[in-house]
């Protein structure tokens, strides 16, 4: 079983333009940012959330707080993910109660990660609203989860994997479509 690269879906420039556009969309559709907060889902949702917050600062000086959420403890498939799951800490430096939250992740696929993220969030309090922002929506939902803010929709088959590579984690910047080949 090996991984074969098929196509590049987004370049570094396209990622940046999309992040800017998503930031604008979120600000536009939030009816005020005073109560807004972003929560990046580990791992790649985190730098994305930070970049979106940074872009928002450029829009009209809005300073939206950013938290990070590790969902390992809330997964429904722990034993299938890794032989030994490794925990990272979540870090949400603000109260979740009554907040207008936007969850940020790199790829939306079956929706199980988002279900786990919401479980994690609701352990912390009662947000006023939770919406989802993803860079790529690749379809194949197994749960009733939808993203309010989508960078790009990509049609995929289930042997394909969408790999978002970000400088902060992967030391390169692009979105690849790869395939598992026996």
């Amino acid at each position: 079983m090996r991984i074969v690269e098929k196509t590049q879906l987004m370049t570094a420039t396209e990622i940046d333009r999309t992040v800017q556009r998503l930031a604008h969309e979120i600000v536009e559709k939030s009816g005020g940012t005073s109560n807004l907060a972003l929560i990046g889902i580990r791992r790649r949702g985190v730098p994305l959330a930070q970049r979106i917050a940074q872009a928002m600062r450029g829009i009209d000086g809005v300073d939206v707080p950013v938290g990070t959420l590790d969902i390992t403890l809330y997964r429904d498939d722990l034993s299938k993910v890794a032989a030994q799951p490794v925990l990272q800490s979540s870090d949400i430096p603000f109260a979740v109660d009554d907040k207008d939250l936007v969850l940020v992740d790199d790829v939306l696929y079956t929706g199980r990660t988002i279900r786990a993220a919401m479980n994690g969030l609701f352990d912390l309090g009662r947000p006023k609203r939770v919406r989802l922002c993803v860079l790529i929506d690749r379809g194949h939902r197994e749960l009733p989860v939808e993203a309010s803010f989508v960078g790009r929709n990509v049609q995929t088959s289930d042997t394909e994997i969408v790999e978002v590579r970000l400088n902060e984690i992967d030391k390169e910047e692009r979105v690849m479509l790869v395939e598992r080949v026996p």
Partner: protein
Amino acid sequence: MPFRFGHMLGIEPLSAEEISFVLDQSKPFQEIQKHPLKKLATLRGKTVALAFFEPSTRTRISFGTAASRLGADQMNLQAESSSLKKGESLLDTVRTLDAMKPDCIVMRHSSSGAPDFVARNLDLPVINAGDGTHEHPTQALLDALTIRDRRGTLEGLNVTILGDILHSRVARSNIHLLSKFGCRITLCGPAMWVPREMECLVPAGASVRRVTRIEEALEGADAVITLRVQQERLHEPSLSVDEYILQFQLTPERLRRAKPDALVMHPGPMVRGLEIDPAVADGPQSCVLEQVTNGLAVRMALLFLMVGADSTSERDSSHAAD
């Protein structure tokens, strides 16, 4: 780099890296204790068997709460009311538990080596919650977490252990753990309770020394671990309670010999007025309650690491999330 633990029988076989990994993995569980909702569903459907063949309150409650907060179910065996009184062997008892298919067994036993025996005879992860005078690994881990949090590191610290070292599995586990991080360990208590053999517990090059005077033992200490004195045992070193207090009680005056912000630790339960002056037990340097909170985090981390993953599954790609 994640480590796998088939069993947690003692600190002695672990490397410093493995210990640091467990402490790192305890941190998210420290955080969760602060959430309004402390219950997770991570180990839902899993069962943790608590087989305490020796009486215990705090450790049993700690492991039980750790299992519950992870969403696991429990099987509870308690010595006082157990079939052992009717003459059942240890092996039969644990095999009976095993036949009910728990996912791991946490056990405490008065015989050193009992958890190892069970680990060799059952196909089940075993966590040692204290065996005879041998080891109490989770106590040493929670002590290490407490020291590391307060001091920023475990490397090269001066740690003094006071009391009945000879009969203390807590002392042994701590000596193993701290020596792996290059700590200078000082043991102090009545001579009979601090035999020369304790210096040989650790590999050559590690620093363990015995000191008879408590003032000298506390000089420059970063952390002081005070062990409980069992009054029933005081006849062994031929000391009366008053003599023990006079020579070995941790008082505020003696504590001043240690570093100004030295940690005062005790595995519990404390006998106020015997091994420890109440003013010290309740003083600003006391970490006793923090140790208990950290104990919960460490035990949750171990249960998560040992019960949370399927031992036969393959590692998936780091990108293949949803």
